[in-house]
């Protein structure tokens, strides 16, 4: 009994409970039809949410005011540059991946450079820089959509027994981040800075280096997501990152990470990402109009955060 209670005291459990509830509500409506298909689709799309949310989570954990608004632009830029460099050649996939990661590294450098040198709030720094990256993406490719190399497209869309292959890789990445967060000096430093930056600094943590690494990490993950998402969706589109701006923040917070910083939660990201996709799928299945769908999505997000928020204060 006590172990069950322990599980229900975890802040991330509610995201999963909500996700399962929404899934059941969907398949009840379809009388069990497409139950597996919905789950596979949910895992495919949740994977992309989780990649960016992992980075966003680390950034948000750094404390109040830390949030990366340049994720959509970074995704677009990395996806655009990588697909153009690969020019649909299978032999160029590794090079394309490296280029995408390089773009992420550059974006992270610019973002943290602005935050550190200009001492502007990260939210404004990443907002202004995102305009630059978006412009660069438009200029680089004139909005042309180049197909990804066939091998990469196959990889990004393939499934094993209904489980997307990419999802397996990202689950492994999530476990790595989870361990890094709780067992490494870097991860503990991120949490410490989020709890009290001054105390962390006095305790000998190199605050600037940790923040620098975190913004780099977030940008690199966004670039990685741009690379895989453009492979998954048949090429990089200029608006491909758009939905990930709000999605990445929502996934992090519904997943049980504290917006005030200092407390991160990796398992919750998966629960929240699945939940948000399943809500959309459910409302689509019900055949509701766009207005009602948006309205219900919003009310469900506010409802979940209100319910989960109380959980946190009780802790």
């Amino acid at each position, binding site marked *: 009994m006590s172990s069950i209670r322990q599980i229900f005291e975890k802040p991330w459990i509610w995201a999963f409970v909500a996700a399962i509830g929404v899934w059941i509500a969907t398949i009840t409506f379809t009388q069990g039809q497409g139950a597996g298909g919905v789950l596979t689709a949910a895992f495919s799309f949740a994977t992309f949410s989780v990649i960016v949310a992992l980075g966003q989570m680390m950034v948000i954990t750094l404390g*109040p*005011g830390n*949030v990366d*608004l340049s994720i959509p632009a970074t995704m677009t830029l990395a996806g655009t540059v990588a697909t153009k460099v690969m020019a649909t050649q299978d032999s160029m996939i590794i090079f394309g991946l490296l280029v995408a990661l390089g773009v992420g590294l550059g974006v992270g450098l610019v973002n943290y450079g*602005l935050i550190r*040198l*200009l*001492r*502007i*709030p990260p*939210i*404004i720094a990443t*907002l*202004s*820089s*995102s*305009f*630059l990256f*978006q*412009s*660069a993406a*438009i*200029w680089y490719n*004139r909005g042309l959509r180049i197909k990804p190399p066939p091998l990469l497209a196959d990889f990004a869309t393939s499934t094993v027994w209904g489980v997307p292959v990419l999802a397996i890789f990202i689950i492994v990445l999530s476990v790595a981040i989870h361990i890094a967060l709780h067992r490494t000096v870097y991860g503990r430093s991120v949490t410490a800075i989020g709890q009290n930056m001054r105390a962390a600094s006095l305790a000998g943590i190199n605050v600037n280096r940790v923040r620098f690494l975190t913004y780099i990490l977030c940008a690199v993950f966004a670039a990685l997501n741009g690379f895989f998402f453009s492979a998954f969706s048949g090429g990089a589109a200029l608006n491909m990152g758009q939905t990930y701006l*709000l999605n990445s*923040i*929502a996934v992090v*917070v*519904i997943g049980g990470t504290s*917006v*005030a910083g200092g407390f991160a939660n990796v398992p919750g990201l998966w629960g929240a990402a699945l939940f948000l996709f399943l809500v959309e799928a459910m409302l689509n299945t019900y055949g509701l*109009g*766009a*207005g*009602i*769908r*948006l*309205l*219900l*999505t*919003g*009310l*469900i*997000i*506010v409802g979940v*955060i*209100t319910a989960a*928020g*109380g959980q*946190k*204060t009780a802790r």
Partner: protein
Amino acid sequence: MSHAPTADTGESLFARLTSPRVLRSILPAFSLVVILLAIFYLQPRAMSPIGLKLLFNLSVPIALATIAQMFVLCVNDLDLSIGAYVGFVVAVGATMLDGGIAALPALEGMLPDPVPWILTTPISGVIVLAAGIGVYALLGALIYIRDLPSIVVTLGMSFVWAGLAVLVLPTPGGSAPAFVRAVMTLSTPVVPFAIVALVIIAIVVHFGLMRTAYGAVIRGAGGNPRSVARAGWSLLKIKMVSFALAGFFGMLAGLALLGLTTAGDANIAVRYTLLSIAGAILGGSEFVGGRVSPIGAVIGAATLTLANSFLTFLKLNPDFQIGAQGAILIIILALRVLINRAEARR
């Protein structure tokens, strides 16, 4: 200037005027003037009353939305739903505020033949808009009582407002009520109405928030909530009041925008969320501590609008327009840092 400094006070007038404190407070206005001069240089015809009117017109709704955002920033929260909310107001304004419930596109063909007055009275629009402000006040209460992150609550609300706006006005259309159009097309002598409106907004909010006792309490609640609560003020009420004010100014922003465009579109104001945050920050507001500046917010919003026109006049390759907007933001913020550095060196 009754207390003009004399030479023997040790500091010259020039040194006083170039002190970091003064520089920092005039920086937003300075950026505005520089961009305005740049526009005049590129397009001398903009220097006419009509040119100025066209330049400043769109900054009125953006300034109002920025003021709304500023009231939320003031109590250490952030409103990511303001753009969607402004769109909702535009949708309601173009339908119910003009022709009552009967003007809703969803009801077309379902109305009884002599339409009863209750269905055509614009009072229904007034009630819906007032309810919107009420929802804002309740959000403030919810965020305070449950100690919720405003970012996520308002994120969820952005979907709610967008959904409601689409329900009210599924496709662009409707028409602006006559009085809204009349206000926004007022013509004033010498100085264009838009500029007069901006000045009035800045002065009214400045006096309300910076010069009244309750304004000080609201800002104090952002700076040090505990001490404000100890002094006997209800933090719940403060949160509700500042959110309701945000809802009120957001509503004004929507109506002003509707008056300019004359027809409604639910998605018209999506960009307002980020513009309002950027405008407030450019104008010297900060994310925490109740440090806000209404005059700065209005100037910041005007600067952002003018920056857009400037880039159009520059005939810049459209690929770079968005990027140039980012660059202008960064340059102005960099200037502020230089001033702060100069201050630190003294």
